């Protein structure tokens, strides 16, 4: 396990302040944050390469705050492979290995047998990264720190590297902490997500929860939430909104009205009345020709201003009384609903899709 308690550290221009989080034994933790957030410094502090000025670093149940890197039983893989250029591929994998058999095993699993005797200078970027991961795993670390190791790889090599790493991870169940700026990767891999910004942990928890309920407009923006609105929130319980016909007690108790521009959204939550931000993921916004009679509490008429295909989905921006609302719908919906720029539609989203922060 990895446990950080109020850790502060400084390395060059980057500093960490009061960092606390836990990644349970055998779990996959993901550190997310923009460039300059201190992600690499965080990993290097856990590794002992950067000294923690305050706080405690507990690895595998032992307080190793002041232990040198070589005694922490961990491995680190950087974005650049940092293969030792004066050694061959095999010598790199052997460097810290616990035995010959594990070297052979890693070389075979990572498919680098043919490269074993080659100089590392002759390898491609993807091959280097595979060798770097093999070298680290050949030491059988109890904690694996990954600093965006796949970001520079082509999609095919990235998938190969991820798959092999996942297989070994499930076999050995070491604890992983991976840095990434790609939230889809975090959602795919992580059991625990830690959002880092300017050297501080700004949110931590289940990745899906962080994705759906970002703690600040900044995080929402960073995580790619298309609809982030500034406005004013006020609790409206115990009075239900006038359009509400159900006798759902829970909704009535926690209903919140959020006003932005000339629109008022209904949301659920316990908020302090006053300025707030509402975050709605585009995937949770639907588009229809007419208002639906379903449980979609927020529905607004508007005009399509922009249609942008992005991968399998199409992002549609609807101008609802001057407020742009983005919806992500399938290409099939675009065809069936005959959506074009200038067409009048109704955008809708549930109160539960509105996250106030």
């Amino acid at each position, binding site marked *: 396990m990895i446990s950080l308690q109020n850790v502060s550290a400084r390395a060059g221009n980057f500093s960490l302040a009061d960092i606390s989080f836990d990644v349970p034994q055998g779990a996959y933790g993901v550190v997310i944050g923009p460039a300059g957030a201190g992600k690499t410094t965080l990993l290097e502090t856990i590794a002992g390469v950067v000294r923690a000025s305050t706080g405690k670093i507990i690895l595998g149940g032992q307080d190793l705050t002041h232990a040198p890197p*070589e005694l922490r039983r961990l491995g*680190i893989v950087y974005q650049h492979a940092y293969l030792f250029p004066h050694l061959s591929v095999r010598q790199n994998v052997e460097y810290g290995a616990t035995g010959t058999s594990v070297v052979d095993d890693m070389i075979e699993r990572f498919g680098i047998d043919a490269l074993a005797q080659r100089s590392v200078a002759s390898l491609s970027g993807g091959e*280097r990264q595979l060798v770097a991961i093999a070298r680290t795993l050949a030491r059988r670390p109890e904690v694996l720190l990954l600093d965006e190791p796949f970001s520079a790889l082509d999609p095919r090599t990235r998938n190969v590297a991820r798959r092999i790493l996942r297989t070994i991870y499930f076999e050995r169940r070491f604890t992983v902490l991976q840095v990434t700026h790609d939230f889809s990767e975090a959602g795919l891999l992580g059991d625990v997500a830690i959002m880092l910004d300017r050297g501080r942990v700004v949110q931590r928890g289940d990745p899906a929860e962080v994705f759906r309920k970002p703690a600040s407009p900044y995080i929402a923006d960073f995580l790619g939430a298309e609809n982030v609105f500034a406005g004013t929130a006020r609790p409206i319980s115990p009075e239900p909104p006038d359009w509400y016909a159900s006798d759902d007690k829970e909704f009535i108790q926690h209903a919140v009205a959020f006003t932005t521009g000339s629109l008022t959204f209904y949301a659920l939550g316990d908020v302090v009345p006053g300025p707030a931000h509402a975050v709605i993921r585009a995937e949770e916004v639907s588009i229809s020709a007419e208002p639906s009679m379903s449980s979609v509490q927020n529905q607004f008429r508007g005009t399509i201003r922009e249609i942008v295909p992005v991968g399998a989905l199409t992002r549609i921006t609807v101008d609802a009384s001057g407020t742009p609302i983005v919806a992500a719908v399938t290409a099939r919906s675009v065809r069936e609903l005959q959506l074009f720029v200038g067409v009048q539609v109704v955008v809708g989203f549930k109160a539960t899709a509105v996250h106030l922060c």
Partner: protein
Amino acid sequence: MAVVVAALSSLFLLFILAPVVGLVVAGGGRGISGLAQDHELRASLLLTAWTATVATILGVVGATPLAYLLARRSFRGRAIVSALMDLPLVIPHPVAGIALLLVLGRGSPVGGALYAAGLRVASSPTGIVCAMLFVSAPLYVSAAREAFARVDARYESVARTLGDDPWRAFRRVTLPLSARGLTAAAVVMWARAVSEFGAIVILTYNPKVASVLSYDRFTSFGLSEALPVAAVLVLLALVPLAALRALRSGESHPAT
């Protein structure tokens, strides 16, 4: 514009090259052929070579840790230490010789103690080594610091997480990766030691190193007698120059 640049560059190169070529042409043949008969010249070249080698070895052993510290660690007083390292480069070399004489001469407490222990510094090969070390070691420190700085510190970090203690990581990773640069630094130091005159002439006139011999022959017998010694010294300087060029091709270790 291009014509002006070319003309100025050519003039400058000519200014550097003409005296050197003139010296070799005028005295090179006589210097080399005279090596067989001129025992004094042979002895002085040998003395120059071995004292410069000893000074370089002492410099490498003594100054490498300092160069590493300056490249890798930030510590209080680092700027002062760096400035101190530059001091021997900026003070006139005869002044360096006088300063060394003051500390290591028989009349000084250190020099007196060394003399009492049977080690004579002034007017001995030891004095030559000290003078060479003083004026040329800073060049080694500077070049070695650069050599260490060119090796990304993360190689060491990776080696540490792979189980190496600091010394083992240095020996297995940093040293091999900076070896070319360190060797080049040592060659620069050796070449500078061989060419030293000002500090040596104050601390140890006799026995004579090659630079002191050429000066001695010039003042005692004139230009024609000084030429062969000077020409041989110039030819000797070509050896480290060639070594440096070979070492500097293919240096640098970016992240791989």
